[in-house]
């Protein structure tokens, strides 16, 4: 018998018992549904993390620091390290804190001199008291130097297509627009806001006080003992919307140019122990889009004792997490498929028993053993195809139906979907299920092939 005829005969006998075929296929369909959903969710998460990284990190930039937590992507090490002045305490959450070795301005300057370095951006930590505007109330907030590799979504205004924003300008998060009394995003552009920064009571001012020969009474009234603060004014260049891929925790910070950030930082941190010491700096590598150059730079920095993390490393860390989730859900789908295998074996066994006479006749007419077993295996393959197709279609329909809801619920941002179906993946999934079904059909097929035609024909 030609293979084509075997396939046709197989599909015909399946059609002859439609309900049974459908029910058996449904068992696989459940597995296919779970697996297709898992794959789709994994695709979605991978896409989303990809966007998250590319919207927040410049691929030609390296995060460089002195603490080994930077390279490993894990929490601070549990082994004590040798103390030096660059180590400072960073609070983590409400109750705990870790000691982190920082990178100093001198080291950052050293990095600037390296031939492969294009630019070094310090990670200034700026603490502000409040944000306000003439005639308006004061509001809390945070500030950050503008990062050209972040792609903020703008409500109004504009940012340069590359490089830093102008000195003296600010990107204002949309939440402040109404609070500060603007009519709308557009209305805020070109207006000025005030940011109040406090100067800490530094060791220098203490020294100045102690050497000033003033009496206690004089000191009590002296301006010097009061905390100093200064108001900085910035012109609004653009209003930023909170995007789904933003990494900011809590309220979005205002963003100022690095020159302004340096000025504010100097004002607010000078004299403190952590002044000019950074958790990390961002090093932009010359032609860093070229992976070879980026790797060479990474290697060189590591050889000098720096800890380095590229956006790729970061993505790997997140991807690993996504993969573990995918595997966990995938295992459930796999178990369902295993269960459906027994369904196929059972159905095909019954089918062999029911068709004992037909098998006997075919053998009597000279059909070879191999062809008989092929016939039954092909039937199982068809069941696998049907189940796989039904499950995948159900998965795709679910995706279309649920995506808008999930995008909104999970705050993924417009244009991002959690469930992404890829045709090739679906085809491979169905092919794999067909293979599994065929293997399940192996045992019943062998039983059919082994039937003695005389025994088979004797059954009335």
């Amino acid at each position, binding site marked *: *018998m*030609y293979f084509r*005829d075997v396939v046709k*005969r197989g599909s*015909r006998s399946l059609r*002859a018992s439609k309900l049974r075929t459908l029910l058996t296929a449904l068992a696989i369909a459940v597995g296919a549904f779970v697996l297709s959903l898992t794959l789709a969710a994994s695709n979605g998460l991978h896409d989303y993390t990809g966007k998250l990284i590319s919207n927040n990190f410049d691929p030609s930039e390296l995060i460089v620091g002195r603490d080994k937590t930077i390279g490993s992507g894990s929490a601070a090490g549990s082994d004590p390290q040798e103390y030096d002045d660059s180590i400072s305490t960073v609070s983590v959450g409400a109750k705990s804190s870790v000691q982190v070795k920082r990178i100093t301005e001198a080291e950052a300057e050293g990095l600037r001199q390296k031939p492969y370095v294009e630019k070094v951006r310090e990670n200034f930590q700026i603490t502000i008291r409040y944000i306000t505007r003439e005639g308006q109330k004061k509001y809390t907030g945070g500030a950050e130097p503008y990062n050209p590799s972040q792609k903020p979504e703008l409500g109004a205004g504009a940012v340069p297509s590359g490089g830093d924003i102008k000195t003296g300008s600010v990107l204002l998060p949309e939440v402040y627009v109404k609070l500060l009394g603007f009519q709308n995003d557009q209305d805020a552009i070109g207006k000025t806001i005030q940011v109040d920064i406090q100067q800490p009571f530094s060791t220098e001012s203490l020294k100045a006080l102690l050497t000033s020969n003033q009496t206690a009474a004089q000191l009590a009234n002296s301006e010097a003992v009061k905390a100093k603060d200064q108001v900085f004014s910035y012109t609004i260049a653009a209003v930023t919307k909170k995007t789904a891929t933003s990494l900011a925790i809590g309220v979005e910070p205002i963003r100022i140019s690095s020159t302004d950030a340096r000025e504010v930082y100097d004002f607010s941190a000078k004299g403190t122990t952590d002044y000019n010491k950074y958790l990390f700096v961002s090093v932009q590598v010359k032609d860093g889009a070229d992976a070879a150059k980026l790797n060479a730079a990474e290697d060189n920095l590591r050889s000098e004792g720096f800890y380095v993390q590229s956006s790729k490393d970061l993505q790997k860390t997140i991807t690993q997490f996504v993969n573990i989730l995918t595997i966990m859900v995938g295992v459930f789908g796999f178990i369902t498929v295993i269960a459906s295998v027994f369904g196929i074996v059972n159905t095909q066994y019954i089918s062999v028993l029911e068709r004992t*006479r*037909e098998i*006997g*006749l*075919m053998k*009597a*007419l*000279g*059909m*070879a*053993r191999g*062809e008989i077993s092929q016939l039954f295996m092909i039937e199982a393959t068809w069941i696998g195809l049907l189940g796989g197709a039904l499950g995948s279609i159900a998965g795709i329909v679910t995706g279309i139906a649920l995506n808008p809801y999930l995008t909104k619920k999970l705050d993924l941002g417009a244009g991002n979907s959690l469930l992404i179906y890829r045709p090739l993946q679906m085809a491979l999934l169905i092919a794999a299920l067909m293979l599994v079904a065929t293997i399940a059909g192996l045992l019943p097929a062998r039983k059919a092939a082994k039937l003695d*035609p*005389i025994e088979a*024909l004797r059954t*009335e």
Partner: protein
Amino acid sequence: MIKVKDVSKVYGKKEGMFTALENINLTIPDGATLAIVGKSGSGKSTLMHVMSGLDHITAGSIIIDGKELAKLKPKAMDRFRATEMSFIFQSFFIEPNQSCYQNVMLPLEIAQVPRKKRREMVKDALLDVELESKIDTDASKLSGGQKQRLAIARAIVNKPSLIFADEPTGNLDSATGDKIMDLLFELNKTLGSTLIIVTHDHDLAARCKMQVRIKDGKIESMKGFK
């Protein structure tokens, strides 16, 4: 030519042992018509099955066209059955939920007849048994006689040189039975196919040139042999 030499067939073992055939010797020339007669349970079907290689023999040998069946490899045996022989069984063994066309086509598929030729051959065979109008009807919708005719169409579609028929008219009224026998004898005449028919119908047996009577697995009498 079919040679049956000292053939015995024993079913079961020890206490349950039953000798269904004992020392059968027959020589059937090509193009012969042979009737195997005898009482129920005498071993007629068994003889037919061993002659066609469907069942194994316990002793002796069966040689068809110089080839000893017991020594053929399974592949060669399948090929031989697919191209040279055909069967009409006591109960028709047609597939009720397939069309007449599908039923008759089965031997052609097994013998790997080119796809283009098949439909013509099936039509011809159905024409011979006067079922041409039922070509696309499901076999389950046929009457008993029509079913037997369908089984015959399936047996003759491949123009076999050897036809085994087990009680081909057993389930039919005499008029239909006669018609079907006419058809088989016609095929014997035109194609020279050897016809081996198991029957206990005396008239039918009388139409065959050779007859062998079986009793308790042994040959009781033979007629028409040289």
